């Protein structure tokens, strides 16, 4: 139960961060991706802010044998760069550039009550399900 509460708190802070930084607004994200237009570097500073906190936190937390509320850390260990990660990132980037939504802001964006987000999110879930259950599954 405590892990569920911790998870809700983390999700809420994440959603607040997306809101405060305005990354919940696809126009803001597209402004960052539009490097040859009227470029808005804000997203780069969102990354700087998030990475500053998380890089320090990771160094500190990684010294622990286990997390506070669970038995073990579940952290990816793979180091190889294969065709899947590159082609997946290309497909994701194209979709991201088309509308300006990636998974975090898309889910948080459901709070805005916009039909565009309500169309995007089910399509995203279908995409995830097709990959996970189809012949391309990992």
């Amino acid at each position: 139960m405590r892990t569920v509460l911790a998870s809700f708190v983390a999700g809420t802070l994440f959603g607040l961060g997306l809101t405060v930084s305005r990354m919940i607004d696809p126009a803001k994200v597209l402004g960052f991706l539009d490097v040859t237009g009227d470029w808005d570097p804000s997203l780069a500073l969102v990354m700087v802010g998030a990475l500053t906190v998380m890089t320090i936190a990771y160094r500190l937390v990684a010294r622990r044998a286990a997390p506070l509320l669970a038995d073990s850390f579940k952290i990816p260990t793979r180091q190889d760069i294969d065709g899947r990660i590159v082609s997946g990132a290309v497909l994701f980037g194209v979709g991201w550039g088309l509308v300006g939504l990636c998974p975090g802001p898309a889910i948080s964006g459901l709070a805005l009550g916009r039909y565009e987000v309500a169309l995007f999110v089910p399509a995203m879930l279908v995409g995830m399900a097709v990959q996970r259950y189809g012949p391309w599954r990992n």
Partner: protein
Amino acid sequence: MESFTPFSALLGGGLIGLAAAILLLLNGRVAGVSGIVGDLLRPAGNDLAWRIAFVAGLIAGPIAYQLATGDWLSVTIDANTPSLIVAGLLVGFGTSLGSGCTSGHGVCGIARLSLRSMTATVVFMLAGMITVYAVRHVVA
């Protein structure tokens, strides 16, 4: 660069980093939204509750912000229905195939200095930039 908002970007980014740090310290999990959401579709054991709670939090965040500040968010989404559906499919399929998105690779992976995540982040950012260039400056 008149729309540049450096302070709110840094502050919001810091909150995202804090969220990822809390999830790691308390639950030992990576705050990658595509993985947290995607694995709801393929549940393994008693793994569902924390994922649902995280998703609920993601939605609660902007609602709490709006209630606390009275500042009703206005966002601009300039895409028609076919674009929204194609983009959603690509984002879902691509993040699933590539094992992560902006949060999982871009924040949590790079914080671990994972070469895999750094590669993915550079690739999806470049692909996004090329797509925006094509849509805004070539097609339009």
